[in-house]
């Protein structure tokens, strides 16, 4: 590129940035429909901005996000199933390798943490992992929805809603318990109930992590002065890293506890067998 062209490109880029800045400042004068306090409160409690679910009931925006994420993921999965998977080769290409790594990662996580029983666990942590990761990344797109009050809002990450976090936390706990029951019967329930705080800790860990990201993002985007450069850092820190970390944490914890409660103790079996033999004598 010649020097003259470089200068022209730089000038165009600077003028675009300046025009955008002027536009932002000029439009900032318009009245905000909600104060930052209301936004923060609504982000935590979801008591104000509701979205109508097919006119049947009013739900939190995160539920719409959850349905949207599910729809997008299933559509993408269907496209992959129809157009990519039939063309799989023994020596994989880049995309095939990515898909295999995705499946292989959760499969390996389940196998390593619960080597004796992991079929259902692998499927569950695959679904949960994909849901948490893409659900968290979903807020980056800022897809708009209209509330029942007629306000336009950006759809948040599904798990920034406490209901979604409780649903996933409790479901993980039930999956862990199911592993205990299948492997150890009534004892498995006892083993799982021993960690009774698990559903609460799992739910609130997810909720807290995702909510913190959401609050910081809301705060940053509320003030136009903070809307330059900073969102890049915020998006990376509170969205991408959360997506990765929370996916790993929940799937790892679930598989770890599942492996623990579904393990059949050989010592107990041996003791039983010994006592049975002694009884016979």
């Amino acid at each position, binding site marked *: 590129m010649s020097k003259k062209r470089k200068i022209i490109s730089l000038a165009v880029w600077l003028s675009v940035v300046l025009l955008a800045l002027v536009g932002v400042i000029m439009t900032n004068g318009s009245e905000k429909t909600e104060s930052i306090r209301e936004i923060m409160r609504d982000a935590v*409690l979801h008591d104000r901005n509701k979205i109508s679910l097919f006119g049947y009931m009013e739900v939190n925006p995160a539920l719409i996000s959850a349905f949207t994420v*599910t729809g997008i993921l*299933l559509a993408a999965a269907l496209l992959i199933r129809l157009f990519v998977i039939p063309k799989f080769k023994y020596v994989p290409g880049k995309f095939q390798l990515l*898909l295999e790594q995705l*499946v292989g990662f959760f499969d390996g996580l389940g196998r390593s943490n619960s080597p004796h029983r992991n079929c259902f666990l*692998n499927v569950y942590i*695959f*679904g949960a992992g994909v*849901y948490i990761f893409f659900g968290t990344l979903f807020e980056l797109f800022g897809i708009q929805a209209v509330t029942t009050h007629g306000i336009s809002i950006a759809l948040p990450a599904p798990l920034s809603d406490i*209901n979604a976090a409780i649903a996933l936390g409790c479901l993980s706990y039930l999956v862990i318990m199911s592993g205990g029951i299948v492997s150890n019967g009534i004892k498995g329930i006892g083993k799982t109930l021993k960690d009774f705080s698990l559903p609460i800790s799992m739910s609130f860990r997810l909720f807290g992590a995702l909510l913190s990201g959401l609050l910081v993002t809301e705060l940053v985007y509320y003030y136009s002065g903070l809307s330059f450069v900073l969102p890049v850092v915020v998006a990376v820190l509170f969205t991408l890293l959360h997506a990765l970390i929370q996916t790993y944490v929940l799937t790892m914890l679930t598989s770890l506890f599942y492996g623990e409660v579904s393990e059949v103790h050989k010592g107990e079996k041996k003791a039983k067998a010994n006592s049975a033999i002694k009884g016979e004598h």
Partner: protein
Amino acid sequence: MNIPLNIDWQQILLHVFNFAILTGGLYFILYSPIKKFIDKRDAYYRNMDSEANEKLASARAQEEQARGCLEGIDQQLKETRMKAEAELSEYTARQMQEAKAKADRIIEEARKSAEEEKRAILASADKEILSMTKEATEKIIHSSTDEAYRKFLEIAERDVQNGK
């Protein structure tokens, strides 16, 4: 019942419903086919590996067999060589013996011939010596007669001269 944090059981169940659909859908559409493909590829490479191992084992067995054959051949070669060497040494000894006998015979013949020749030479030398002796004797005899006669003649001449 007023639950804190605006927790709504209906929405929790809706989230569970949503997640169940997502997990089931992902399992049937994505996870299962990819897992099956990975397992199929694993089986393919495992099969390839076992086939290669079988071939390797077969090759090793063949190698062992070939080594056994080679050892047998080596042993056979050794025996043949030893036999050949024994035969050769026997043949050589026989040849040597024959050669020696021949040489002895030749020497004997030569000795005999030399003796005969010597004898013939000696005989001829004797004859020659005899003839030479005879000749010499004859010569001696002739010379002594002539001298005596000459002396007699001289004496006679002298007597004649002296008037005797």
